[in-house]
């Protein structure tokens, strides 16, 4: 089988319904799982995913196979868990939802293979609370998979068994942080945990646990079925595979497309999103969701791959970009985002808990015409206080990214809100 150029979305139906089990199997569904169970020891599955160069699609881009390789293996390793991070709450991001709603079996197969690779006997899908349709379709697919022995005891007549549970989140952005997710899954407050120890060592209920993003796991069946070489040939980029890229904002056709890794921003915006709507010009964009730094029109030819976006001064994040046009105020846009982040702080560490509300307050004063010149410096200071390493988890540094980059790129917009000296009296 030669495989397709868009493995993740090949089964997507135009009528909006979920791909059926039959349809999924027609395109090779569950053969990756069968191959893994029949032909490969768990470590070999890990190695294939390592060789494929798959990097996490949740935002951080950590090599998936390496993550699995940190899990203690062997007979005395005890209970282990696989957890699917389906708590997709990054503003501007809706890729996992699409994958779960349109091809739920693809995720289930990915879960089963991943669980086999780390020898986890129990897996959870931690699903964003609002994803009702995804929940419904996953539940149905899980029942089908159980019925067809792709889940449950002795999967496909092998000695491997897997219990898969669907957990709908009570709904907090912080639950997307993998350790806060684990706490939430345990019924505790959704507060992140300190790392180390990493979840692979002490995760869910203190047991070795792998947390993977939905899209990441959706790649796995194809790697196992079509092979490493095929997977690496999907793109010319240093990052193998395809990726769901998205664009929202005042583009002509906002949406989501499966494209090779390394597709340039220009191609995504101009070819796939159809360029800017009439009367709007591109001012900037957040390349990977709300918690990434602004890039500018000068960055249009940056390929969407982890290192290249980082080099341009931002993060690939979820790969679903939010486009800023010239008729939308970047200050108001940032205020809107910071309100969200302040609301979603878990309240554990000081810079986030108390820094974000102050940030919001300063931006609100500014847009209300009550800002002071020194407030812009204070916003910069707050961004530094909330910087990476200064906070307990990545929420506040992420929240600081759009603000700090807006202050850099759109300082004039901020300054325009300052009252003139004569008005200050």
């Amino acid at each position, binding site marked *: 089988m030669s495989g397709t150029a868009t493995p993740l979305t090949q089964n997507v139906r135009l009528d909006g319904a979920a791909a059926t089990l039959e349809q999924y199997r027609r395109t090779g569904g569950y053969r990756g799982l069968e191959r893994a169970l029949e032909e490969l020891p768990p470590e070999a599955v890990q190695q294939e995913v390592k060789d494929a160069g798959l990097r996490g699609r949740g935002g951080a881009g950590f090599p998936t196979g390496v993550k699995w390789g940190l899990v203690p293996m062997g007979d005395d390793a005890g209970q282990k868990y696989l957890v699917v991070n389906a708590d997709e709450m990054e503003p501007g991001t809706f890729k996992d939802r699409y994958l779960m709603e349109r091809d739920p079996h693809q995720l289930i197969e990915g879960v089963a293979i991943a669980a086999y690779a780390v020898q986890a006997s129990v897996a959870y899908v931690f699903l964003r609370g609002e994803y009702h349709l995804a929940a419904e379709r996953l539940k149905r697919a899980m029942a089908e998979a159980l019925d067809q022995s792709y889940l449950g005891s002795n999967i496909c007549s092998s000695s491997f068994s897997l219990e898969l549970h669907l957990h709908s989140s009570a709904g907090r952005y912080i639950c997307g942080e993998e350790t806060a997710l684990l706490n939430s899954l345990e019924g505790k407050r959704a507060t992140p945990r300190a790392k180390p120890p990493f979840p692979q060592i002490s995760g869910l209920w203190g047991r070795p646990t792998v947390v993977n993003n939905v899209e990441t796991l959706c790649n796995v069946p194809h790697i196992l079925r079509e092979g490493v070489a095929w997977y690496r040939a999907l793109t010319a980029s240093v990052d193998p595979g395809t990726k769901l890229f998205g664009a929202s904002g005042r583009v002509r056709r906002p949406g989501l497309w499966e494209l090779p890794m390394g597709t340039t921003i220009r191609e995504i915006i101009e070819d796939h999103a159809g360029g800017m709507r009439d009367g709007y010009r591109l001012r900037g964009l957040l390349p990977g969701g709300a918690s990434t730094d602004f890039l500018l029109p000068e960055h249009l030819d940056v390929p969407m791959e982890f290192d290249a976006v980082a080099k341009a001064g931002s993060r690939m994040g979820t790969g679903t970009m939010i486009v800023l046009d010239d008729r939308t105020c970047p200050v108001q846009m940032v205020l809107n985002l910071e309100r969200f982040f302040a609301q979603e702080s*878990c309240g554990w560490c000081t810079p986030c*808990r108390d820094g974000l509300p102050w940030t919001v307050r300063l931006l609100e*004063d500014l847009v209300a015409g009550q800002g002071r010149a020194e407030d812009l410096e204070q916003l910069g200071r707050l961004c530094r206080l909330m910087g990476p390493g200064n906070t307990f988890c990545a929420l506040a540094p992420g929240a600081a990214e759009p603000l700090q980059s807006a202050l850099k790129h759109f300082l004039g917009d901020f300054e325009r809100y300052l009252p003139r000296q004569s008005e200050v009296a």
Partner: protein
Amino acid sequence: MVGIVVDGEPHEVPAGGNLLQSLLSLGLDLPYFCWHPALGSVGACRQCAVVQYRDENDVTGRVAMACMTPVAEGLRIGLKAPAAVEFRAGIIELLMTNHPHDCPVCEEGGECHLQDMTVMTGHTFRQYRGLKRTHRNQYLGPFINHEMNRCIACYRCVRFYRDYAGGDDLQVFASRNQVYFGRFEDGALENEFSGNLVEVCPTGVFTDRTFSAHFTRKWDLQTAPSVCVHCGVGCNTTPGERYGTLKRVINRYHGDLNGYFLCDRGRFGYGFVNCADRLTEPMLHGQPVTRAEGRARLRDVTFKGAIGIGSPRASLEANFALRELVGPENFYAGCADADYAMLDTIRRVLASWPVHSPSLREVEGADVVLVLGEDVGNTAPRLALAIRQATRNCMLAAAAELKIAPWQDAAVRELAQQVRGPLFVLATTGTRLDELAEVVVRRTPADIARLGFAIAHALEPAAPAVSGLSDEDRQHAESIAEALKRADNPLVVSGTGSGEPAIVEAAAQIACALSRRRKQPASVSFVVPECNSLGLMLLDPKRLGKALESAESGSVPAAIVLESDLFRSARTEAVESFLSRVGETVLLDHSPQATAHRAQIVLPVGTFAETEGTFVNGEGRAQRFFAAMSPRGAAMDSWRWLAEAHPRHDWQCLDEVTGACAAAIPVLARMVDAAPRADFRIDGLKIPRQTHRRSGRTAASAHIDIREPQPQDDTDSALAFTMEGDAFDAPAALRTYSWAPSWNSNGQSIAKFQDEVGGALRGGDPGVRLFEPVQRGAAPWFTEIPRAVAAEPGVWLTVPRYHVFGSEALSARAESVVERIPAPYVALHPSDLARLGHADSVELNWHGFREVLPVLADDTVVPGTIGVPVGLPGMPCGPCPRTLALRKAEPHGSGVST
């Protein structure tokens, strides 16, 4: 040790610790909030930031949290690096955006860690223009005030209350900058360690409600090192006085004993000192007389050949002075005969058996714990808290295997989940530690003892075997013995609470068997009823019953009763008979009690807060306590009344009594070393009880006399009732308060007085251990194993039950504690209650008196037994009978009209 570099200077620090603790141990100042030496690191507040450098060429470094950074060889950090200084100031500024500027009216002011840290970081100018978030406060009961607006969300309160102390009714609610620390609804905090929130909270969210009722600033308190009198653990405390009122008690750190925490009985029980009905004047037949008259009468009584009844809650010196006055042959113990028998066993075991009596720190290090017949949580709460920590050791070991440091608190607890190290609770009724136990076995007292003896036999065949054990109990004995055999640091805990002497013997037997197996002394910890129960026994008194019996024969001309209520120690009838046959009775005590009403002569004495002396705790540690204030009225130290009445001794000060006692009683020889003598001086001065900031010295009593009074002299100790002198450099046993430059709070400033943070106090933790294990000779096994008790129809075997609040007499007089004392009751197993026809109350025969008490169904009560709460106000007087006949009380049968 590993070498680290701080601001370019090399230092040596112990390996394996976190950087914050290491820096503080070096004596360096670094602000922090969420970290606590007993609670470990969680990295929440981000206050302890330093700059960490990769190597000597790295000049930029990166900000790192010291509390989450393990020390390692070659670690280079900048404490004073501008990036770190700026970051720490930024964090304080953020914390202060919502913190009210109410320091002048906040009770934490002056000993507030947040104030200290704010000053330390240099944040002085407020740039935040927004409104502060506000919260609704809760009523949290008689002990704790709640002011949530002051909260800086360090999470220490819930981490202490829930994770460390096992409470579950304090929680964190909501999220972001609205996080709320409180109960799900208003109501008293249920956990018996809630008072520690006052010291654990770095600011004024949780404050001492009893202190609030008569508030004084820290710097205006007159304080002295003291020892808690509300159980036999002997926690170190610091009572504080102003205007003749004992204002509060706070923790006094002791590295081997109470560490940073007290129980609520110890912290809030002090209220009895301030009761208006205290005995303050000598009374003769109910009429006040002068001190001289009182002294003369005491002398007369002595000449008549009085017997003396010593006290388990009076100092060694007071008891010794009484013993000297009446002669050793006429000296009796003021405790129930059953307690006496058990204490006698404990005394002998500690003195001559190959067993080790552990400190609380050693208890915390135990990996397998067996509790035999004692509800430690209610009889010695601080010991139970130590056992609670010990149950975590197995998971700390598991964490270590995964390279998770023990101070990584959240990570260790996450790994551990609900797993606790082996704790076996063999009890006569439900106990506070049951929730942590791997195995809980509830049996009658005799059966618990039998089970204990069976464990000893399973450990060491030379120990006598137990016949007639049920299969189930034999299996328990074997599996518990196996667990004890496997342990590195096994611990047996028992005590006098069960009222069954054989249980104490069985506990000793198990420890002895373990010692034999291990060829090194095993630990056994005994809970004793009162603060000086063991001390009294070391003076070799006779049992109280003997005194009562000799009075029957008319041979007791007079009795001197020291700080005891005989009606709590013997049957009412027997005490009545004794008092009527004894020619004259003298009572020395500080608080009204039943014996005081019957004594012809009452001599007022000071409480622990007003007197000085030495207690011996259950561990066998002699500890000196000092007066924080002068006694009221004509009250004086008990030993002084007794010494002044002595025809030959001319003791002028406490040291002389202590010295005489040490000389007369070999086992007490080292009690003189419990604290420096009264002639101890620093630069020619005594240690001040008052702070260098004390205000109103010349005005405090100006409404009585315009002239400043001469400071009262204290001839008995090296402490002075003045501001002059050096409190900072005082030896630990004499340290009147914990206060260091830049560190004004009790819990945090103590770091400046420790060898290393969380370790021993500099110069050694105070007190003297009197017993060390005896290695020689063959094990002297107890051979009398009780027989199983067969149930008799209509007769219930009594089992004592204890309550943190109510079972101890002195604290039960404190106004705040009274609110927490349960109403009198008895408890039956639901099946027994059903047999009685589901009565609401039962009528029982209590030493011949008919009593009616409400009855509770409790499935932790062993069928055939009846749980009888000890000491609760309103319960029938005197020690509980061994058995009770009872029946359903008829409606209106009690004769109480409504």
